[in-house]
């Protein structure tokens, strides 16, 4: 019963533990199966549309990321983040771009050491992706103003390029990079290589940091020139674009070497027919001279540029050039031609709605008017200038608002992506938590089970111990109860022997004594045992009755009837169970009777029971106790009480049902004792 119960508990616990594990697994598979489209397909789709529909592309990528994260598809995650970075860059969201790129980079670098190696079978070489991320990161960080970090990534890109020397690094930079390289125009010249681009960027950054030496060194590196930083060699690059940019950097450093680069760039561009770069270089040259107060040279270059730009019909640049030309003329003390140029610039500005140009033009015109002494006109112009400034400010605000709105939308999307990541992180953490908690639960369950087993085990041991002790106690009790019966015989019998000796009847005394000793042998032998063969019991009873009869021949006759069906060797019964009742019958019943009584002892087999009847027609228990004194009664009842307690112990210890009944026979004032001993139990021991 107990064992069954504990097994039930055990299975219950184990089941619950397993189902917990099972639940976890099903949850996971469920999420993976949810996404119908594959991440890589979505990324491809995003790639194809991001130029035109960046928002949609971001949506696709968000979806792709969700799938890739749930599947643990590292490759898709990297690609998605990289593309996101590019899109962000296109949308001028530099901090987002760098964040996404950093994520991609992080995944590439830590991918192999990630816990869940779902794609471990195809660890890819991501060096190409890495280098392109470095470059883009450098760019976005530079534009964010994080110069040191930008420098780091540019440098990484350059280092990698120097190590690898493969085609990719020499290949030209793509459009988007050119656009954000810090120049106003697209440099569609003979393209510069990515390495050169990075070197330029490094030079630019050092320039901004006022570390001109390093900047120059980088420029020199860009053209593969000598590494001496102080002596910038005029090994111009074969790219007009590079030269133009290098020229500008040098110009910004107020290094005269800038003239050389810019001139070279302009000439190269002209021969290449790349008017934009030519114009750019010339503009920079003009600016260089303007800064160095060489307004004559500046004016010449402005004129040159105006010619080119008029051909190109680049109105905005034209306006700017006219304006600057005007300023130079004004500085040269040519207010009329200056006025003419600036008015032209203002008109052109009006044409293209460029408030800045108009504003600046008005300011300059006002200055010229002032210098000419036309104060009223100057005031008028200045008021106009102020008005323009206001409207340009409001315009700027509008622009900013618009930008803000757009960037809000994007940041929302980015938030979604971030949320996704956080979700995944949380998911992972929850899973981990669940796992560890299920592990804890299991440990708890097992330790509980162990504890339970321990409790059951010790309880069982205690129970067993108690049972054993009780059994031992019972045995001791049984033994002590048994030995208490013996003295009755001994002294009664010895007394009889004494009697014969007194009568000088040697033969009878000898016979009585030897029979008594035989009886004593049997009783002693039996007293060691809880059960004896029926045969021994019968022998003993026969001897006993005969001995007693010898003494009280005149008081009673006896009949000892034994069922022939009773095989004395087959059955076992407790010893000294019947004898005390026979003794009672003789000593307390028959002995007091006036006339001769009769003792009938019968052993009978009745189906599965041995029935023993001890019947006497003596004076009966009631009369007997009336005759006796109090003390006599006490000793007698002790004997009977002993038998009853002995039977109780035997019945409980050996699981039998031996019954004993003492009846008074009213008709003849006798007593009948009936003992029933079930055979099954009597054999068992």
């Amino acid at each position, binding site marked *: 019963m107990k064992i069954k119960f504990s097994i039930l508990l055990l299975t219950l616990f184990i089941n619950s533990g397993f189902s917990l594990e099972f639940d976890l697994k099903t949850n996971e598979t469920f999420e993976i199966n949810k996404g119908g489209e594959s991440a890589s397909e979505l990324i491809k789709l995003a790639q194809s549309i991001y130029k035109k529909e960046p928002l949609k592309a971001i949506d696709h990528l968000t979806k792709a990321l969700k799938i890739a994260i749930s599947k643990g598809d590292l490759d898709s995650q990297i690609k998605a983040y990289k593309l996101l970075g590019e899109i962000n860059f296109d949308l001028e969201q530099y901090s987002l771009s760098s964040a996404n790129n950093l994520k991609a980079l992080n995944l590439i670098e830590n991918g192999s050491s990630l816990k869940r190696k779902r794609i471990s079978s195809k660890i890819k070489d991501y060096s190409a992706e890495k280098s392109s991320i470095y470059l883009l990161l450098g760019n976005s960080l530079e534009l964010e103003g994080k110069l040191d970090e930008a420098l780091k990534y540019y440098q990484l890109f350059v280092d990698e390029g120097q190590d690898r020397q493969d085609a990719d690094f020499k290949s030209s930079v793509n459009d988007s990079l050119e656009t954000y390289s810090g120049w106003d125009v697209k440099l569609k010249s003979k393209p510069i290589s990515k390495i050169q681009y990075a070197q330029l960027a490094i030079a630019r950054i050092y320039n901004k940091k006022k570390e001109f030496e390093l900047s120059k060194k980088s420029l020199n590196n860009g053209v593969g020139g000598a590494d001496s930083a102080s002596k910038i060699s005029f090994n111009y690059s074969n790219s007009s674009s590079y030269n133009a940019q290098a020229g500008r950097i040098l110009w910004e450093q107020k290094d005269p070497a800038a003239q050389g680069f810019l001139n070279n760039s302009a000439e190269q561009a002209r021969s290449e027919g790349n008017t934009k770069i030519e114009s750019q270089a010339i503009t920079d040259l003009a600016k260089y001279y303007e800064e160095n107060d060489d307004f004559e040279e500046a004016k010449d270059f402005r004129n040159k540029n105006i010619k080119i730009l008029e051909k190109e019909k680049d109105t905005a640049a034209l306006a700017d050039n006219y304006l600057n030309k005007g300023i130079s003329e004004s500085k040269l003390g040519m207010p009329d031609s200056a006025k003419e140029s600036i008015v032209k610039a203002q008109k052109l500005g009006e044409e293209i709605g460029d408030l800045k140009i108009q504003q600046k033009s008005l300011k300059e015109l006002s200055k010229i008017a002032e210098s000419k002494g036309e104060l009223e006109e100057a005031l008028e112009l200045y008021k106009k200038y102020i008005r323009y400034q206001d409207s340009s400010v409001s315009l700027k605000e509008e622009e900013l608002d618009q930008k803000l709105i757009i960037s809000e939308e994007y940041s929302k999307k980015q938030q979604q992506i971030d949320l996704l990541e956080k979700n995944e992180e949380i998911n992972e953490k929850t899973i981990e938590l669940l796992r560890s908690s299920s592990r804890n639960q299991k440990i708890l369950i097992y330790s509980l089970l162990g504890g339970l087993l321990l409790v059951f085990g010790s309880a069982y041991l205690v129970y067993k111990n108690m049972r054993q002790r009780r059994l031992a106690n019972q045995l001791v009790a049984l033994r002590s109860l048994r030995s208490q019966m013996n003295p009755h015989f001994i002294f009664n019998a010895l007394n009889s022997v004494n009697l014969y000796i007194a009568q000088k009847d040697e033969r009878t005394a*000898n016979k009585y004594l*030897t029979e008594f000793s035989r009886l004593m*042998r049997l009783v002693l032998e039996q007293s060691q045992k809880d059960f004896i063969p029926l045969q021994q019991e019968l022998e003993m009873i026969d001897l006993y009755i005969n001995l007693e009869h010898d003494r009280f021949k005149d008081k009673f006759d006896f009949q000892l009837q034994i069922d022939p069906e009773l095989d004395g060797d087959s059955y076992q019964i407790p010893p000294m169970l019947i004898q005390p009742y026979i003794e009672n019958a003789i000593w307390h019943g028959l002995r007091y009777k006036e006339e001769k009584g009769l003792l009938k002892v019968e052993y009978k087999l009745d189906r599965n029971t041995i029935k023993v009847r001890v019947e006497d027609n003596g004076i009966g228990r009631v009369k007997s106790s009336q005759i006796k004194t109090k003390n006599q009664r006490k000793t007698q009842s002790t004997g009977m009480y002993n038998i009853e307690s002995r039977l109780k112990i035997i019945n409980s210890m050996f699981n039998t049902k031996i019954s004993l009944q003492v009846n008074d026979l009213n008709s003849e004032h006798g007593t009948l004792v009936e003992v029933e001993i079930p055979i099954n139990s009597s054999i068992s021991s």
Partner: protein
Amino acid sequence: MSLKVIIVEDEQSSREILKGYLERYCPDITLVGMADSVKPALELIRIHKPNLVFLDIEMPFGNGFDLLDQVQEINFEIVFTTAFSNYALQAIQVSASHYLLKPINIDELIQAVEQVKLNLDRESQYLNTKILVENVKLENHQLHKIVLPTLEGFEVASVKDIIHCKADDNFTCFFFADGSKKMICRNLKYYQELLSDFDFIRVHKSHLINKNFVLRYRKGKGGTVVMSNGNEIEVSASRKKEFLEAFAGLK
């Protein structure tokens, strides 16, 4: 003819009682000497060449069997006297030697002396004692010899030759390995007790078998056991357990 008798008994009172009984109730005997231990007893036996020795089993300085060990020639009957039934009793009973339990019953004493007197004239004189001495010396129980009283006299058989015994009223029929069978004037219960130490099992109210001759056992309510001589013997349901337990140890 008068029996020459020696009493070997360590206790003075016991000697006196036995001496008195013999004088009063066995007029045909001559008590030639009494000894209180093995050494003087051997001397008495050598000198008097008695017909009968009353021998106490438990004595200090060597017991009754030690005395028998040292007797050169067995040419007397022995009646053992002992205060309590113990291991020695079985050896005595197997050889059908006489024994008296103390306190000695006068009737039994007279009977024992009469028995010895009867044997005195026979060819099988002192045979019981010789067998007893032989048995005592043997370690292996199965080689023991047993003396079986018949109507004509007695049979001596090796325990190892008895296949089984069958109760026949108050007699017991013995089946031997050589195919012969003998009716013995004792009941089966007597031999059950006697042979229980010799691998004999009571399988039925009227059957005692030698475990070493069992060929096979067929299951049934009690089952049937087939002995080496082909005899089939029923096992009673109430003794089946005991029977199987006796064989469980051999498996």
